C-alpha cells in the first residue's frame, strides 16, 4: 500500500531576479514499511526533497507546484497546523549532524518530552516513561541519567542515537534520514546504520534514506532513486541499480567506488562537476559530463522510460532499447 506519493514536485528558490528551480517536477512513491535510498552528489536536490516532504524548506526555498500525498492527504495543501500535526508524529526526520541538531540549552529529557506532549495528551511522567523506553530501544546505556543530561555531555554517536529515538517517539509511518551517519566517526557509522535498519524493520516504518554512499544504500534499502541536478534520472530495485545500472551517471557513480577499482590504479571519477542551479545546460543536465552525449542530449531532456527492471531518463538508453526492439522484431 502506498504511504507516500510525490507527483511532479517542483521546488524553486526565490532570488532577486527570476526564481531558480531546484527540483524539476520529480515523482516517486514509497510504500508502507518500504526503505528507499536517495543517492547523488551534493547539490543534486536530495536534502531539498527531504525537507520539501515535511514542508520545512528554509527560505528562500518554496514548493512551486506538484503534490505530496502522504497517507492520502496532500501536504502542500494543508494548513500550517495540520502539517505540524504530521511532523514528528506521522513522519519524522533525522538530521545530518547530531552535534548541532539538539538544542544545547535543553536537556535530552526536555527535548523528548516536548515532542511527545506536542502530539499526545500525556502527563509529564507518562511522557518521561515513554522517552525512557525509546532510549532503551536505541541501546543507550543508563537511559535514566541521560534524560537529565545536556547534549554537550554526550558523544556524537550517542547524540545521533537520541535523535533516532526522538524520531521514533511517536511511532511514525515514515522516517526521512538525511545523511544520518556522514558527520559521525567511521567506526560508529555502521552501528548507527544497523540500528536504523533494525528499528525500521521491526516497527514496519518506511524509510527515506538520503545519502551519497552507495554501499549504505545497498545494505539498507530495497529501492533506490538516483538524483542529478534536481531530477530523478534513474530508479528501481536497489539490487538492479547496483548490479546493472543503466544511466551513464549511475554507471559512473558505481565505477567510481573503490571496490570497483583494482588496487594501485586511480579511482575512476566522473570528470567535471554538477552544474549550478543558475547555470543549467539545455537538454539533459548530465550532457556536459557524459561520454555518450549526442546533439539530441544537448537539445532535449529525455523522458523516463522503463528499461528492464529500472526506470531511467536517458536518450542513449532509449536508443539502445529501440535497437533491441527492432532486432527482436526482425527475428
Amino acid at each position, binding site marked *: 500500500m502506498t504511504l507516500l506519493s510525490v507527483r511532479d514536485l517542483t521546488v524553486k528558490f526565490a532570488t532577486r531576479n527570476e526564481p531558480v528551480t531546484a527540483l524539476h517536477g520529480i515523482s516517486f512513491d514509497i510504500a508502507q514499511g518500504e526503505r528507499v535510498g536517495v543517492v547523488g552528489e551534493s547539490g543534486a536536490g536530495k536534502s531539498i526533497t527531504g525537507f520539501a516532504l*515535511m514542508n*520545512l524548506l*528554509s527560505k528562500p526555498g518554496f514548493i512551486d507546484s506538484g503534490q505530496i500525498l502522504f497517507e492520502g492527504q496532500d501536504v502542500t495543501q494543508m494548513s500550517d497546523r495540520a502539517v*505540524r*500535526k*504530521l*511532523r*514528528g*508524529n506521522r513522519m*519524522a*526526520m533525522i*538530521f545530518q*549532524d547530531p552535534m*548541532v*541538531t*539538539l*538544542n*544545547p*540549552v*535543553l*536537556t535530552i529529557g526536555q527535548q523528548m518530552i*516536548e*515532542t511527545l506532549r*506536542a*502530539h499526545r495528551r500525556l502527563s509529564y511522567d507518562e511522557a518521561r516513561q515513554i522517552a525512557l523506553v525509546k532510549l532503551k530501544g536505541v541501546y543507550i546505556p543508563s537511559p535514566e541519567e541521560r534524560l537529565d543530561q*545536556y547534549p*554537550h*555531555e554526550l558523544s556524537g554517536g550517542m547524540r545521533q542515537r537520541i*535523535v533516532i529515538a*526522538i524520531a521514533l517517539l511517536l511511532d511514525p509511518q515514515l522516517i526521512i534520514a538525511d545523511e544520518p551517519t556522514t558527520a559521525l566517526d567511521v567506526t560508529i557509522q555502521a552501528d548507527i546504520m544497523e540500528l536504523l535498519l533494525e528499528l525500521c524493520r521491526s516497527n514496519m516504518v518506511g524509510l527515506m534514506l538520503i545519502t551519497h554512499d552507495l554501499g549504505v544504500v545497498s545494505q539498507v534499502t530495497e529501492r533506490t532513486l538516483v538524483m542529478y541536478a534536481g531530477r530523478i534520472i534513474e530508479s528501481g530495485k536497489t539490487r538492479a541499480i547496483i548490479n546493472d545500472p543503466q544511466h551513464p551517471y549511475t554507471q559512473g557513480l558505481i565505477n567510481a567506488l573503490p571496490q570497483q577499482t583494482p588496487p594501485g590504479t586511480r579511482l575512476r571519477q566522473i570528470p567535471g562537476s554538477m552544474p549550478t542551479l543558475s547555470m543549467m545546460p539545455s537538454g539533459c543536465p548530465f550532457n556536459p559530463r557524459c561520454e555518450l552525449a549526442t546533439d539530441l542530449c544537448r537539445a532535449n531532456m529525455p523522458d523516463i522510460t522503463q528499461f528492464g527492471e529500472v526506470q531511467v531518463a536517458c536518450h542513449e538508453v532509449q536508443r539502445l532499447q529501440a535497437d533491441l526492439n527492432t532486432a527482436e522484431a526482425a527475428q
Partner: protein
Amino acid sequence: MFAYLVKRILQAIAVMLAISMIGFAIQGNLGDPLRELLGQSVSEEVRQQLREDLGLNDPFLVQYMRFLGNALQGDLGTSYFFKEPALEVILKKFPATMELVFGATLIIVGLSVPLGVYTAIRPNSIASKVIMALSIVGISIPVFLTAILMIYLFAVELGWMPSFGRGETVHVFGYWDTNFLSADGWAHIIMPSVALSSIMLPLFVRLIRAEMMDVLQSEYVRFARAKGIAPWRIYFIHALKNTMLPVITVGGVQIGTMVAYTILTETVFSWPGMGSMFLEAVNRVDTPLIVAYLIVVGFIFVITNTIVDLIYGLVNPTVKLSRMGA
C-alpha cells in the same frame, strides 16, 4: 561550580587591587593635601613636620599598604569640600543613582526582549520596520541630548513633568530614600530613567533581533520544527534561551557604559546621585571624593560583572563543565 566561583572571586579581587592602585596613584599626585589642611601661609618647617606626621615621606609601598588597610576598613579619606568621610558622602548619594539605574534597567529589559523577539520573528511586518527605524534613530541620539530634549518638551513647553531633582522621597532605611513610594517621586524619576535607557534600549533591541534571527536559522530550531513543536514554544523555549546567552555577555560589558551614562543623566536632571557628585568633585579638585568614587564605582562594577558571569554560567549548561575542569 565551586571552582568556577573561586576563580571568579579571585579575578574580582585582582581587579579591585588594580583599581585601588590607580586610586592611590591619583591621591598621591592630584592636589596637595597639606595645602587643603593648612592653607598656604605656613612655614616650611611646619609643613615638613606635618608631612612626617601624615606619613607622606614613607616609602611608596608602605603608603600604599596603609591606604589599602584604611580602604578595607571603609576609610577612603575625608572630603575637602564636605569635611565628611568620603565614603559616607558617596553612600548618601548611592540610593539616588541606584534607583535611577534600576528604573532604566527595568525599561531596557522589559522592552528590549519583546521588541527584539518580535522584530526577529516578523522581520517584514510594518511594526518591525517602524521599530527598527526608531531604534536606529535611538542609537543616534546621545543620552544627554535625549535628556535635554525631554526637559525642553515635557517640562518647559508642555509643563507636564518636573525638570530636575528627585522630588519627594520616602525614607525606607539607613541612607535609603526611595522615589518609588510617592507620586511625586515617580513623576521625578520617569524622565531620567527613560533618558538613561535611551541608547541602550535600541542597542539591545537590535542585538536581540540579530542574535534571534541567527538562532532561528540554526539546525536545532529546524529540528524542533521537524518534531512538530508549536511555534511559540520554538520561539520562547528553543530560541530565546540561546539568544540570551550572547546578550547577557554584552549586558555585562554595558554595565560600565551605564555608569558613564548616569553621570550624563544626573548632570542634566540635577539628580542628586553619585554621578553629578563626581563631576562636582572634579571641578572642586576634591581628591579624596574622586578617589572614593572610583573605588566605589569599581567595586559595584566588579560585583555586577561577577553576578552577570554567574548568571551566564547558570543559563548556559556548557559553561559549568568546561570551566570546572579548567
